[in-house]
Structures are given as structure tokens and as C-alpha cells.
């Protein structure tokens, strides 16, 4: 009894394995077909680390100037010294031409607005006339500073050299 039962089980298992093998082979074939259709074909300039590592180490002087400009240090990445000063000068000339100083006339404010403007109790910490006078002072101060700035810089450089 035992032998007969074992023989039937082996036959069954053999048949089962055969079927499974055919199924697996079928799946593999299908998978190959699908993958051949949807395969990723990288373009020639695709990111390739070998190519990147084989790039040009000996840069030409033009490229060196472009990638590592002499004026730029690791601390000075704001383009303040060379190009931006020119740009800011152009901006200031434009703004001065476009927005000339214009003072409002006596009829510009309503009477109740004038009361509010020069009221010490509310709104601003001090009445606006205080801030306006401060602004004028500051402008005058910076103009004077700009006159003497070059002299100060030279003297400091001399000190360092000594």
C-alpha cells in the first residue's frame, strides 16, 4: 500500500513540476519580450560618472578665469566690488532721473490728517518731522564719509605694511 501511494505521489509531483516549469518558462519569455520593448536606452550625453571623471583637468587659461575668477574669494561671493557697483550706479542715475525730489504742497493733506501727522500721542514714536530731520542728517553724514573714504583706506593699508 505504502509503495503504491508513494509512486502515485511521485507521478503527481513530476507532472506538477513539469507544468510549473512550462509556466515559468512562459513567464520568462514574456518578461523578456516586455523588457526588450521598454528597455532604457541612455542617450550619449547621459550622466556617466566615468565620463565625468575623465573630464579636462588641465583647464585652459580662459576656462580657469571663467570658473575661478581672480577677484572672487571664498568669502566674497556677492558681486559687489566690480560688476555690481557699475550696475548700482546705473540704477541710482535712473532712479534720480525718474523720481526727482517732489515736496507735497500745503493742500496735499487734509486738516484732520495734519492733526494726526503731528500728534505726539499716537502712531509714530516721534512725530514724522523728527524722522525727516534724521534722514537729512544721515544723508549729509554719508556724503562726507564718501569724500574721506579713500584716504582712510590708504592709511589703514600703510599701517598693515608696517
Amino acid at each position: 500500500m505504502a509503495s503504491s501511494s508513494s509512486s502515485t505521489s511521485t507521478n503527481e509531483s513530476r507532472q506538477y513540476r513539469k507544468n510549473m516549469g512550462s509556466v515559468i518558462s512562459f513567464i520568462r519569455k514574456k518578461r523578456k519580450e516586455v523588457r526588450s520593448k521598454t528597455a532604457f536606452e541612455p542617450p550619449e550625453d547621459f550622466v556617466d560618472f566615468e565620463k565625468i571623471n575623465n573630464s579636462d583637468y588641465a583647464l585652459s587659461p580662459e576656462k580657469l578665469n571663467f570658473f575661478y575668477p581672480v577677484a572672487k574669494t571664498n568669502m566674497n561671493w556677492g558681486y559687489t566690488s566690480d560688476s555690481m557697483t557699475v550696475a548700482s550706479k546705473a540704477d541710482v542715475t535712473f532712479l534720480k532721473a525718474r523720481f526727482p525730489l517732489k515736496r507735497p504742497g500745503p493742500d496735499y493733506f487734509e486738516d484732520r490728517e495734519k492733526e494726526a501727522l503731528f500728534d505726539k500721542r499716537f502712531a509714530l514714536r516721534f512725530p514724522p518731522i523728527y524722522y525727516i530731520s534724521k534722514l537729512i542728517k544721515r544723508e549729509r553724514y554719508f556724503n562726507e564719509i564718501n569724500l574721506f573714504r579713500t584716504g582712510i583706506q590708504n592709511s589703514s593699508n600703510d599701517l598693515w605694511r608696517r
Partner: protein
Amino acid sequence: MIYGGDKFGNPPQHYNRYYITCLNDVDLPQVLDDICTNINGVIQIYVDCFMSTLGDLNAVDELTNEPTKIETCRIMYPNQVSHINDTTEILTRQDIDNLRSECKFDAFTAKLHNNLQNDPFFKVSNVRFNRVLDYSINVNCFPPGWIYK
């Protein structure tokens, strides 16, 4: 993100910064267009205004001893953070057009009016928008490579 700076520790956005004030008789969209097209660099722009507001002050009539209300006028000035325009970074022509549409007189005053209406503090005290006194325009100019940093 901006990580650049100079040897004095100042980040570059503090270098070219213009604060422009105009009286209320200017054509604001045209002014903003001129600024955006003529100033160098990548522009970040904030538009706001000084304005006068009306409010009611509670008082008592001395003769009849009845509570009354007195209309008061106050000046509101732009906070450093607040701005009326939604498009602040100007990178394309479309941004300038959006800015123009946002800063047209009707839209601008409507936004101011809504801001006062929606603020719970001013809602309670019944503060109303009266008129624009002058426009204040804050322009930050970044270096051209700013967007790539």
C-alpha cells in the same frame, strides 16, 4: 537660499536696496513697470503705502449726558514685513503684468480696505480706510546668478 556674503558679514541682498516713496498722484502700475524694466539684477519688490484711516472715538456729551461718537483720523504706515502685492520676485514679463494688475488703483485700495475689514482689532474699533497718502516701494536687487544659488 542665499549663502553668499562679503568679508564684513553682510549678505549680498543688503547691498542694492532701494526704498522709493511716491506721492499719490503717480500712476503706480507704470511706475512699477519702469522700475522693473530699468533696474539691474533679479528684482524682489514690495509695494505698500502710508494711508489715513477714520475711526470712531467713544465720548459723552456733557450737556445732555448721552454717549456719542467722534470721528477721528489716524495715519497708518507700512510695516517692514507687510506688502500689498502678491508677486514679489520679478523674473519674467508675465510677473510684471501680474504686478501691474495687482497694483491698479481699484485693486490696491480694495486690498487695503479688505485688510482693515478682516483685522479683528480694527473691526471692533470700526476703523475705515480713508485714502492713500503716499506709496512706498521697497526694491531688493540680487546679483544675476541669484536664482541658481
